[in-house]
């Protein structure tokens, strides 16, 4: 068991690191006649996108945007979507923009990432227009206008993609479920709105953290028994202190490492301020992920480094 060696606001912080992985990411700007409809499309698009393990992508709402911040001047929502390959991002965007955004009343969908590499989205969705679709080029950028029953669906021909970082995380340990939830909620509130980062799990929090192996041959991931309080007495290498009764994890995906680190820093300090018993991070010994994000440098006050 790793001994806590650091402290923030009375909360023990394990001197360890989060192990994160190389991914590919995209930013999608969804606009609509009202913020409510833009949010409805964004929530649909980011549904069932918690973990690459079962959902083929991870996605979340990055920010809500005022009219002056969107391409067409209407209220909008910024969504980030991640997958393990450039091709995977392209496929998931095509599916989710087509099924979740194009279907939503009054929406339009724009690329929000200036990147060298791109994937075709509108250029594929246009075929839904059954040869009634029209394209418009503006300043070298091509849009497609697909006729739909409430008017037209406008979508960018191509969306930028870039290498990204997935799986940044913090683990919050509390005395009981209520206290741990309170600390996790405080962390999520502080982490949301970090530019370039999203928290893909429900409410930003995951309780079924996993390890990358299983006793069953047909599974490649299973429950993280080392952090299950109920297994403290039987797990071979439990990391749960005797005084801890609940553990929650917050996973962060970001368009770059700095965004993930910023979100982790904000979450760590907020959870500590909200009374977390201990904060640590999930890793696999450093042998799987391309990135190791140490918690120690994140102990600096939020304002000093973000």
């Amino acid at each position, binding site marked *: 068991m790793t001994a806590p060696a650091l402290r923030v606001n009375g909360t023990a912080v394990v001197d360890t690191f989060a192990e994160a992985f190389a991914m590919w990411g995209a930013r999608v700007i969804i606009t609509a006649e009202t913020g409510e409809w833009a949010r409805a499309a964004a929530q649909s698009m980011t549904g069932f996108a918690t973990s690459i393990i079962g959902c083929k992508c991870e996605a979340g709402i990055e920010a809500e945007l005022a009219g002056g911040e969107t391409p067409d*001047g209407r209220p909008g929502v910024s969504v980030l979507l991640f997958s393990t390959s450039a091709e995977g991002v392209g496929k998931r965007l095509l599916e989710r923009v087509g099924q979740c955004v194009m279907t939503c009343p009054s929406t339009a969908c724009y690329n929000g990432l200036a990147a060298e590499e791109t994937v075709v989205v509108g250029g594929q969705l246009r075929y839904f227009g059954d040869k009634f679709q029209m394209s418009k080029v503006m300043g070298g950028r091509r849009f497609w206008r697909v006729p739909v029953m409430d008017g037209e669906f406008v979508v960018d021909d191509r969306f930028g993609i870039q290498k990204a970082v997935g799986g940044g995380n913090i683990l919050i340990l509390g005395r009981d479920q209520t206290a741990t939830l309170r600390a996790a909620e405080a962390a999520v509130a502080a982490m949301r709105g970090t530019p370039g980062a999203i928290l893909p799990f429900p409410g930003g929090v995951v309780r079924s953290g996993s390890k990358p192996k299983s006793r069953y041959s047909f599974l490649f991931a299973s429950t993280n028994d080392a952090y299950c309080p109920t297994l403290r007495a039987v797990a071979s290498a439990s990391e749960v202190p005797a005084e801890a009764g609940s553990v929650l994890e917050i996973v962060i995906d970001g368009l770059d490492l700095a965004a993930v680190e910023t979100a982790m820093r904000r979450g760590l300090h907020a959870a500590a301020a909200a009374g977390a018993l201990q904060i640590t991070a999930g890793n696999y010994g450093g042998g799987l992920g391309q990135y190791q994000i140490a918690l120690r440098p994140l102990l600096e006050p939020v304002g000093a480094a973000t």
Partner: protein
Amino acid sequence: MTLDLTLHTAPAVPIEAEVITPSRLAGLSLLETAKLTVVHGNQSAELGEFFRVAGAAGGDIHVSGDLARVKLVGAGMAEGRIVVHGTAGMHLGAGMTGGEIVVEGSAGDWVGAEMTGGRIIVRGDAGHMVGAPYRGSRIGMQGGEILIFGTAGNEAGSGMRRGLLAIAGDSGDFTGVNMLAGTIAVLGRLGWRPGAGMRRGTIVSMHPAEMLPTFAYACTFRPVILRLYLPYLRGLGLPITEAQVQGSYQRWCGDAVELNRGEILLLESGETPAAA
């Protein structure tokens, strides 16, 4: 660093000065520039017989004077920038593929005829056949942008296949005739028979217009695409109002004598169509 060409002798008959392009003048001395050949009527002449040459090549080219009889300035240019201080003659920027031409005054016929890229800005009025195909050809401009801050003559955007043509004032008859695709935005009034023979493409006007009988009214709606396009034009300096950006537009589909995939969008402003 600019190269200044100032008209000192107005030609009695038109001269064809397609040598006035950034790539043609690049690297030339002032003397070499003055000795470039232009066609004066049916004779050959030197550029210096009409223009005083000063400054240095390599940057913008400023052409000054009444150039109404100086044709083909910037024709075929691919890069760089030409600024015309005065009136530009016919065929300005015809066939250009890139770069920018700015005319501080008005321009003659055939502005940007058959151009494929770049941008032409005319602060005043433009003549007929803006962005049009030459006689015998079906395809007009295939890319780039033409912005006319005044009015444009007849057959603006004729045979247009790609690109943007924006006219702040009125446009003449047959705007977008035989249009194949692309976008024409007219902030003033359209002349007679807009979009005649158009296959695809978009013509937008901020005023009512008399539609040909081969155009059919579809609906009135708020096109999201105009919420992108019109602010873009405003960013280029055109006087776009918020009412135009937010407004409802009649959609007319046509031309039924052709492919019938074109559209004319008319801002619903409460005005009645002008008498034919």
